[in-house]
């Protein structure tokens, strides 16, 4: 949709640019796959499906049963970390493929 191009240029048709964008997208999808696997593992995996067996172990140095800790504390901390890791990965990916938006890094 040409009207979404800020300078009103026709959409990108240069095959080299198109291939670069496709590669950018593949890298993005790979990051998503890895990060969402961790997202699933800490919440649905450790916090729900494996919570009962993990509860036999205590989080070292605390009184937390491990499965319970993942369900009510740990998964939330990991979620925050995942988003900030994604932000960093994508900022450098944007620069590498020259699709960043300028301004301060």
């Amino acid at each position, binding site marked *: *949709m*040409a*009207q*979404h*191009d*800020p300078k*009103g240029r026709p*959409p*990108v048709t240069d095959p080299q640019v198109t291939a670069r*964008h496709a590669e*950018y*997208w593949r890298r*993005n999808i790979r990051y*998503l796959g890895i*990060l*969402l696997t961790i*997202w699933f593992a800490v*919440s*649905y995996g450790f*916090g*729900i*499906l494996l*919570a*009962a067996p993990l*509860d036999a172990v205590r*989080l070292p140095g*605390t*009184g*937390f*049963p491990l499965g*319970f*800790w993942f*369900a*009510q*504390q740990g*998964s*939330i*901390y990991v*979620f*925050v970390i*995942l*988003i*900030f890791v*994604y*932000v960093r990965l*994508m*900022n450098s990916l*944007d620069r590498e493929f*020259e*699709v*960043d*938006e300028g*301004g301060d890094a």
Partner: protein
Amino acid sequence: MNVQAWTFLLVAASFALYIGIAVWSRASSTKDFYVAGAGVSPLANGMATAADWMSAASFISMAGLISFMGYDGSVYLMGWTGGYVLLALLLAPYLRKYGAYTVPDFVGDRYYSQLARVVAVICAIFVSFTYVAGQMRGVGIVFGRFLEVDINTGVWIGMAIVFFYAVLGGMKGITYTQVAQYCVLIFAYLVPAIFLSLLITGNPVPQLGLGGVDQASGMALFDRLNGLHAELGFAAYTSGTKSTLDVFFITAALMVGTAGLPHVIIRFYTVPRVRDARLSVGWALIFIALLYTTAPAVAVFARTNLIASVADTPYTEVPEWFTNWEATGLLSFNDANGDGRIQFVGPASPQQNELTVDRDIMVLANPEIAGLPDWVVGLVAAGGLAAALSTAAGLLLVVSSAVSHDLLKRTFLPQITEKGELLAARVSAAVAVLIAGYFGMNPPGFVAQVVAFAFGLAASSFFPVIILGIFSKRTTREGAILGMIAGVTLTAAYIVWFTLMHPELNNADHWWLGISPEGIGTVGMLVNFAITMTVSRFTPEPPSHVQVLVELIRIPRGAGSAHEISA
């Protein structure tokens, strides 16, 4: 100064602050009104999102709910935070790049269909109204309990405040008042939690105190609580009673529902760049996590304290806060066996339980249980009001923009002027405030189910079509419309069947595969995905300008000026 005077002072001061901000940040264009001029910093937007997201239910009820549910309460903790990962990775950056004003805007354009737009508008309005009714009720209840005014008067006062900054300031006014409201509510939540943690575990950080040692018994706090539970015939606090499958489905429905709620999504239209949208979700989750990791600690402290101070205690020797809250009807003791002692026992005990405790008391009574000064009680009231008002305002904006932008500007009155559209936005915000106030004063009898409904509906309607709209160019108009309708119908039918038509059958023996109505949104979402993808394979592929649009959404560069041109 007594509790009442402190409460008046703190509530009045916080309201004056919100009104001051509203006057300072008036909206002068539709872009200001819908997306705060897309000029909000990621940090400020993160705070505003956190206040927008955390409602009266998060502030007042959640810790109490967890306190009574134990491990089962994890569904809320993971469900209402994990959705932000989906937002950051799958939705926010792309929707920001597209640069629309509303969610139906994106759905209508991506699926090149006015029908898809209208279906999306109906879902957005329905989800937002069901949610907002509970918020206005929360405002009324806080006024009623802490300031001893009639609940309806409380709702009127709340309406007047929201009216002022939502109608005048639109998204711009709402954003900056929400930043202030976040500060009020998080301070009000953490102060009692820190004192309580010091009191029970000797550690000032509630998240660490929770895994620490109970000062009174010298045991690990969890061992003490599980021991007390076993003694009194309650299920172990750390293991819960819901089936694993149900916990899985409820968590998924809440996560996906969070990522599909229009009032959350539109917050990420307000930042300047795609990069800011990603970062802003991160800030939002940090601010939310501050409360959400404290809540399970408050739940355990309050539970342990409650059992230790009342179980098997002679009624004549109960602490003072017990008597105070008994007067409100939130605590009630019925001496069934006539021994003058309070039997607070669970289903596995041979004795009969004699104590009824409203879950809201766990947060509301905390300052008194911990023996904190009077001003902390006033602070909790101001915090509860901040949580309810900020969420209500965000929801009302969705309703108003759905009417003035999606229905008028984009569907029925494309010739409307900028001034006309801004006026329409203000009028529809005003009408929405009145309708929300009506529901606050005359709440439908099924408010609790209605919240499950809002999440189920968001999960089974918006989430799949937005994700597929971005990640699959082949997804067609026919697929998306049928998918949304099928997902919503299935979810709504299941919830209505079990909660409204046959509440007597609403238990695990009758549920399909043991999935409760709270978790059915996950099934609705899967059905939506399956139908959208299948139908898309057998219908003509989207026109080339839509496929190019999808290509452009995926690349961050060029977001800044996107919506002056498209809108």
